[in-house]
C-alpha cells in the first residue's frame, strides 16, 4: 500500500482559484480509485513524470469509439486505477443543462466511476474520468437509457460543439444550437464508427468572434456572418456619444477597413457596407447601437487543427456565405461536408488531417474534386509563384508530343 499523504498536492489547495486537488479529495471520500489517483498524481509531482500507459482498445458494442483506454504503469501498487478509462458523453448543444440532467450524469457515474469528471473536455464532451473495463458496457447502457450518447474518439467525426448562440447572444447570425444538434444527429454513423484517415471536427460559432475557437481547432468551422449592410441605430449612437464614449478612437480608428465614419457634429455613424469585412469589432464595442445585417448565414472554413505533424493549421474560407436555416434541414451544408469527407477519405494518408491533405495536394485540386467553386475570398492573396497546373485536355496539344518530335 502506498503512503496516503499528498504534501505536494496539498500545496495546490491553497490560493483563491478553485482547486482540482480539493475535487479529487472530495471524490476520494467515496471512491478508492479517486484516492489512488491522488497517490499516482502525488508521485508524478515528486518524480516529475506521468504514470499512465497507452490505452489498449476498450469500447462498447456497436461503436468504434467514445472511450479512451488508460492503464497505470504499476498496477500492483495502484490496483484501483490499474484500469482507468475515460468515457466521453456527448454534451447538449451550447453546454446547456437542467439540473435533472446533470444530476443524472452524476448518479450513474457515482455507481461505476471515480466520481470525477471534466466539465468539459477540450473538444466538448462530458468527460467521465476513470472506470474499469468490465463496467464500460454497463455505464454506456445506463447512460443510453437515460437519454445520453457517447461522443467521438479515434478516426471519426469528433463530438461537435457550438457557442451559446441564439440561446443568449445577440450576435448570433444563425442558430448554432440547432445546427449543431441537427447536424450531429445526421452524422451519427460518422461519429460513432471510426472510418476515416484521422479525426475530423466541426465547431459552430454564431459570429466572427468565434467563441468556440473553431478557426483554430476545427477541421470544419462554421462562422456566422451576414451578406448585407450592418444596421446602425443613430439614436443609440447619440447615447454612446453622450456618455463620452470615444466613437472615433475606439470604433472608427480600429475598424480594419476604415469603413466607418463618425460625424461628430451630427453625431452620426455611417458605414460603407461594401468595405465592411464583418469583423464584429464595432458591434462588440457598441452592441446597443450596431447590429448585424438582415441577410444572415455563415462562412464555411476548413482545415483547422493543432500542431502535429505539419504544425498547426487554421481553417480557411471555402464558402464565403451559406444560408444556415433549419427549414431546409441544413442540406447544403450536409452535402458540402459529405463531399469534403469523401474526398478526404479517398485521398488522405493515415493520420493526415483535412488541412494537411489540402496543403499536400493543393487547394486547387481539392476545390475541383470536391466541386467547390473558387472565389477570391478563399485567399488573403493569390499565389506568388507561377507554378500553375493546366488541365491538359483543355489545351490544344496537337502540336506537341511527349516523344520529342519536332514541332
Amino acid at each position, binding site marked *: 500500500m502506498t503512503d496516503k499523504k499528498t504534501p505536494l498536492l496539498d500545496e495546490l489547495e491553497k490560493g483563491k482559484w478553485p482547486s482540482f486537488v480539493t475535487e479529487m479529495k472530495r471524490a476520494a471520500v467515496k471512491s478508492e480509485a479517486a484516492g489512488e489517483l491522488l497517490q499516482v498524481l502525488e508521485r508524478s509531482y515528486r518524480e516529475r513524470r506521468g504514470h499512465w500507459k497507452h490505452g489498449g482498445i476498450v469500447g462498447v458494442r456497436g461503436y468504434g469509439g467514445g472511450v479512451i483506454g488508460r492503464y497505470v504503469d504499476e498496477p500492483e501498487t495502484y490496483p484501483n486505477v490499474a484500469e482507468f478509462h475515460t468515457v466521453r458523453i456527448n454534451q447538449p448543444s451550447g453546454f446547456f443543462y437542467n439540473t435533472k440532467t446533470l444530476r443524472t450524469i452524476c448518479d450513474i457515474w457515482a455507481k461505476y466511476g471515480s466520481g470525477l469528471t471534466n466539465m468539459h473536455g477540450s473538444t466538448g464532451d462530458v468527460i467521465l474520468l476513470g472506470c474499469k473495463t468490465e463496467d464500460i458496457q454497463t455505464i454506456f447502457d445506463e447512460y443510453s437509457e437515460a437519454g445520453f450518447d457517447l461522443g467521438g474518439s479515434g478516426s471519426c467525426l469528433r463530438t461537435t460543439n457550438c457557442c451559446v448562440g441564439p440561446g443568449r447572444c445577440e450576435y*448570433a447570425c444563425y442558430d448554432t444550437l440547432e445546427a449543431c444538434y441537427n447536424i450531429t444527429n445526421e452524422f451519427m454513423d460518422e461519429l460513432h464508427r471510426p472510418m476515416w484517415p484521422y479525426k475530423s471536427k466541426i465547431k459552430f460559432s454564431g459570429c466572427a468572434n468565434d467563441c468556440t475557437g473553431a478557426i483554430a481547432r476545427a477541421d470544419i468551422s462554421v462562422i456566422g456572418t451576414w451578406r448585407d449592410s450592418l444596421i446602425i441605430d443613430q439614436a443609440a449612437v447619440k447615447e454612446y456619444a453622450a456618455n463620452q464614449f470615444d466613437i472615433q478612437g475606439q470604433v472608427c480608428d480600429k475598424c480594419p477597413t476604415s469603413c466607418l465614419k463618425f460625424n461628430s457634429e451630427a453625431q452620426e455613424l455611417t458605414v460603407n457596407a461594401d468595405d465592411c469585412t464583418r469583423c464584429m469589432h464595432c458591434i462588440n464595442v457598441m452592441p446597443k447601437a450596431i447590429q448585424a445585417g438582415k441577410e444572415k448565414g455563415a462562412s464555411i472554413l476548413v482545415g483547422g487543427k493543432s500542431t502535429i505533424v505539419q504544425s498547426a493549421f487554421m481553417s480557411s474560407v471555402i464558402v464565403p456565405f451559406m444560408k444556415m436555416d433549419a427549414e431546409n434541414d441544413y442540406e447544403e451544408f450536409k452535402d458540402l461536408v459529405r463531399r469534403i469527407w469523401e474526398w478526404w477519405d479517398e485521398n488522405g494518408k493515415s493520420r493526415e488531417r483535412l488541412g494537411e491533405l489540402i496543403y499536400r495536394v493543393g487547394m486547387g485540386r481539392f476545390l475541383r474534386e470536391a466541386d467547390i467553386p473558387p472565389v477570391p475570398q478563399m485567399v488573403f492573396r493569390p499565389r506568388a509563384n507561377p507554378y500553375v497546373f493546366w488541365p491538359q485536355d483543355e489545351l490544344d496539344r496537337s502540336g506537341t508530343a511527349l516523344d520529342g518530335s519536332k514541332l
Partner: protein
Amino acid sequence: MAKLDQGPPNYKEMLPPVILENYGKWKYHEIPQPGVLKHVAESGAALYSVRVGSPRLLSIDTISEVCDFADQYCEGYLRFTTRNNIEFLVSDEAKVNPLIDALTAKGYSVGGTGASISNVIHTQGWVHCHTPATDASGVVKAVMDDLYEYFTSMKLPAKLKMGLACCLNMCGSTHCSDIGIVGVHRTPPRIDHEKLRKTTEIPTLVASCPTGAIRPDPKNKSVIVNEDKCMYCGNCYTMSPAMEIYDPKNDGIAILIGGKVSNARTAPSFSRMVIPFLPNNPPRWPEVTEAIRSILELWIANARQGERLGEWVERIGWEKFFSLSGLPFSDMLIDDYIFARDTFRTSAGFKY
C-alpha cells in the same frame, strides 16, 4: 440494450423559460459587474448570467452542489462556457446578488467576463494522459492563483485567453492563445526494442516522424532514431508505446504568446514562442507563474485600450517586445520548420 446513435440530449430541454421565450431575439448586453452578463431581449426581458470559475476537473459532489444553487436561484438551469466556466442563468434580477453572495460564501469565484482573464483551457496532464511533459491542472491552478485579481476584475487592456497543453498534441489549443503554455520534451525517445517488436508496425512508426528522424533497422527488427533530427515531438510515442519520451530531468514548459482566434479587427493568429523552456517545478511552477505575470504586466503597462496581447506586440514589433521584456532571444525561437520562411524578416526595417 443500449440505444445506438440516439445523439446528445436535446438542448431545447435544457433551456430556461426566459431563453425559450426570447430565443434568437436578444438585443444587447451589458456587464453590470465582473462575472455578470445582462442580456436584454427585444421583449424587454433580461437574463443574468453569473459566471463562476471552475477547475474543470469536478467531483460529482461539486456538480451536485452547483445544481443546488441552480435549483435555488435559476429554476434549475445553468450552462458551461466554451472555457469550462459555469454560468448560472438567472431570470429574476432580484436573485443575482443573493446568488453571488451565496456562491462567494462557499468559496466560488465570480468573474471572467469582459476585459479579464478567463479560465485556462487545458488538458489532462499527469492526471490521465500517457504523453504529458508536464501537468495540466496543477500549472493552471498555480497560474490562476497568481493572476486571480484579473479574473475577478475587468481592468485589463482587453480579454486575455490562455491555453495549456501538456504535450505537443496541443489538446488545449494553445496555438492561438494570448498566452499558451505547452509541455515540451527535450530529449529523443528511448526505444524498447522488445516491446517495439511486439506492439508496433514499423512503417507506420517511421512515417509518423515529422522530421524523418526514425529509420527502420531491419537487422534488429526495430528502428533507429537519428538524435540530430529529433525535436522531441513525441508523435512516435503516440504511435508506439515502445518509444518512451518522458524525461523528468528535461521535460518542462514553453511559453507562446500573442495568438488569437476572434476575427475582430485582426485575423486569427498563431501564438509565437517567446520562452523555449522553463523547468517543471511542481507543485507551484514558480518560474512559469512569474514569467507569465511579467509578460502580462508589460502588456498592461504598454497596450492601448482594447488591444489584445498579440495586437500590442505586433504594433510595437516583436524585436521591441524582446527588448522591453528582457527575455533572452536565441536561435531556438527562430522557426526552422515547414513555414519558417515567412517568419524571416525580409525587410531592412526594424527597431534596434
